[in-house]
């Protein structure tokens, strides 16, 4: 811990500094590549692994099974619907999940009976779900509407709070990167995209902006008197703010990700697929990327958007002049930094 505190001190005073803003080209290129890959991968793979809610179909859940043999479940389905290819999975300790294509009511009842006797469970331990493909489409549509509304309102809120649209835009850029790469990770890992995952996804966007707002608040504080200061250029000031909030960023990320990770690894390990796992995976990935996007994309982008402003160009020149002057007047300066 003392190591971490020292780390924090050094970041705070500027003794230790990571050049997030100066090396922005590298980060932007990495982010751009990440985003590009996130678009290319799903296209190349032929889309996401969509959950049953998007494809449509029937799903059975058998709890308290005596055996977790998948072939029993497959047979129970193929006995009723020959030629179908059911997906049978052990989703929790002794719970089986069987997904099929869309079935008729009659077939559903028959398979339900078949599963009851095949797994040796009672009637109410087999549940059936029928999901129409339009359900997923509805969720997606609503999610998209929600996304657009949220982005517009959040952009407005931030522009008003920070009194500059450039912060708003940078924050949204960070969020967009988070969004694309999270989706890309989903496509790459072949995790099922379910409505729960979509919920998680929307929450990630909120987290991403939340994280950015905290860091930007510090940036605003540090740059509030930039016009009359000759200590640092605007970009350096932004970079210092990011460094000064780095410990906060790491701590926040850790604290946010620990419970989510608990659900993901403990919950999913014991429970298998389900609302909790789908939600927590999206959150887990999104929080990691969201934190990184604030530091590597949003903050450098803000510095980049503003560095060309005439006022700041002038200020940067003054900083240079002062530094040159300081060099001359204090040649023996112990330049340790």
């Amino acid at each position: 811990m003392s190591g971490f505190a020292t780390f924090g001190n050094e970041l705070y005073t500027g003794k230790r500094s990571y050049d997030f803003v100066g090396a922005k080209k590298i980060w932007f290129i990495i982010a751009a590549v990440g985003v590009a890959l996130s678009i290319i991968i799903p296209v190349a793979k032929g889309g996401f692994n969509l959950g049953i809610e998007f494809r449509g179909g029937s799903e059975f859940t058998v709890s308290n099974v005596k055996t977790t043999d998948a072939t029993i479940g497959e047979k129970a389905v193929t006995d009723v619907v020959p030629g179908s290819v059911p997906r049978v999975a052990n989703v929790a300790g002794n719970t089986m999940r069987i997904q099929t294509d869309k079935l008729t009511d009659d077939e559903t009842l028959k398979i339900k009976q078949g599963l009851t006797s095949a797994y040796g469970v009672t009637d109410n331990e087999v549940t059936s779900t029928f999901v129409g493909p339009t359900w997923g489409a509805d969720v997606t549509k609503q999610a998209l509407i929600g996304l657009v509304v949220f982005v517009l309102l959040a952009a407005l809120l931030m522009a008003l709070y920070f009194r500059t649209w450039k912060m708003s835009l940078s924050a949204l850029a960070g969020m967009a990167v988070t969004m694309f790469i999270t989706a890309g990770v989903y496509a790459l890992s072949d995790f099922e995209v379910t409505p729960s995952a979509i919920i998680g996804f929307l929450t990630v966007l909120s987290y991403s902006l939340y994280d950015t707002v905290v860091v930007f608040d510090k940036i605003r504080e540090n740059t509030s008197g930039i016009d009359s200061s000759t200590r640092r250029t605007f970009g350096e000031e932004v970079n210092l703010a990011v460094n000064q909030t780095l410990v906060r960023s790491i701590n926040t990320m850790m604290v946010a990700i620990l419970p989510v990770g608990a659900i993901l690894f403990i919950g999913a390990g014991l429970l298998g697929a389900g609302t909790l796992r789908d939600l927590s995976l999206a959150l887990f990935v999104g929080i990691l990327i969201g934190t990184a996007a604030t530091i590597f994309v949003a903050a450098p982008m803000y510095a980049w958007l503003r560095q060309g402003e005439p006022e700041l160009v002038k200020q940067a020149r003054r900083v240079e002049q002062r530094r040159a002057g300081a060099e001359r007047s204090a040649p023996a300066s112990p330049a340790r930094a």
Partner: protein
Amino acid sequence: MARTGRKKPGLRVLVWLGVILAALTAVLAGGTIAGQASWAPKLALDLEGGTQMILAPKVEGGADINEQQLNQAVAIIRQRVDGSGVSEAEISTQSGRNVVVSLPGTPSAETRNLIQASADMNFRPVLLNGDGAPVPPEKRTPEDQLPKPTAAPANSSDTNWITPEIYKQFEALDCNSPAAEKSERSDPTKPLVTCEPATDKSPAIKYILGPVEVKGSNIVTSSFQLQQGAQGAVTNDWAVNIQFDAEGTAKFKEVTERLNQFYVAAGGESGTDPKAQFAIVLDDQVISAPRALAVITDGRPQITGGFTEQTAKALSDQLKFGALPISFDIQSEQQISATLGGEQLRMGLLAGLIGLLLVVVYSLFQYRALGFVTIASLVVAGALTYLAIAILGWTENYRLSLAGVAGIIVAIGQTADSFIVYFERIRDELREGRGLVSAVENGWKRAKRTVLASKAVNLLAALVLYFVAVGNVRGFAFTLGLTAIADLIVVFMFTHPTLQLLARTRFFGEGHKFSGLDPERLGAVPLYRGAGRVRTPEDRPVVVRSKNTGAAAEAERRMTIAERRLAEKQEQLAGSSKTSAKENK
């Protein structure tokens, strides 16, 4: 250390928080004692077990559905579900297009079909009626005396429709016991044996009806009003008006021409020929069977006879539903048995608990004793959230779903973040060389803004998700919003006042090694250290200038060590010794 007016700042706020918590607990306790609330939060169907169906309404002819029609659809389904004896059903509309029906337990195939079926209204002529009770078996018409059709029926009022089977069915029918709902709708081209259920005013009646003659979809609209007497004066009797479309008008004219003949032949007002009646049939049950007193040529019949305002409105509404033959496609049907939900909940809570534990360990590791403030704050936030959920469950019927549980678990991290932002700001202030008391105040001033701004983003997201979202997204969003508010209350009313108090304790105030606010560890060395220790210039990392030089000084205070040294050197060179680091009190 300088003292502000009050001796223990923060104490009053803490007392207020205690009052709020006590009041909420009292409200909940009161509700529980009164038997209306319960200590446990209400669980949604996914945790309690039950079935949720999402229905997409379909209007005949594929027309789009408007909100009013959707609300009618909800009313229709509610009527059906309540009628079939299932209690505690939740029926609501979703995103202005779908109807969500949530039923506890597993609905029977009959219930499912009932929910799915379209509101099926039509007009059939009455062929025969009788007392609602079943004819006792010994009194039933013997096989050889059953009415037999002598010819193919000529029109819908022809008694040749009555076959021996239909007659037997009619005799056996019991209209006094609740009708076992039929899963299939009747064939409109065949006769129908059915009941008019008993009402307050009249006993149950059973009917044999001819094939459908006018469909409900031929109704344009329906209204009800006080009946007008012969002189145009308003009477006290209520009447229901129907307005048919062109097709309905033509057909209804034809029907009333035929039925009115029976009416007149049977002796008009005093006649009893059932064939003068036409039955209005909704979902295969007769809701009214008036007689055709006249030939209606304009498609605007008026039904009169013993209506109250209430019954007139009811019939008028039913006729409107009939004008809207909505059927439903089950888009998604989810049966969640309570055992599965319970297991998920248990695991979810377990995961949440472990997650909480990890957060505790991490905060203790990062913030030492200050970590306990985090933990206490989380406990208070948890208590607030719990009370809010339980009370909302009572007053607003808010039910906690699995997605909601996930929302709470996710909120642990977001709640703890407010403390992190605050603690880091305090540390920043300590690094500047401030004493703890002023570090807490100054840190709070800055953290407050950040916390408010960032929580606004959280709340915004929760609100948008809540209002735009579908299904279980709402539960999740609601919980997220709820915890965000609880978090704000806790940071303002618990964490900050607690730190104000703690800052005045020796343990924290003197920066004990384990307090998490040890200035030495934070790289700040205050001027007065006691124990004979003298601060050397090397120890002094920060040159704190006058505190009130405004925003411009802000940037200067945040120089790198190298810059500070440089600045100091310059100052020394200039002969000015501006090094008196002050506590700024």
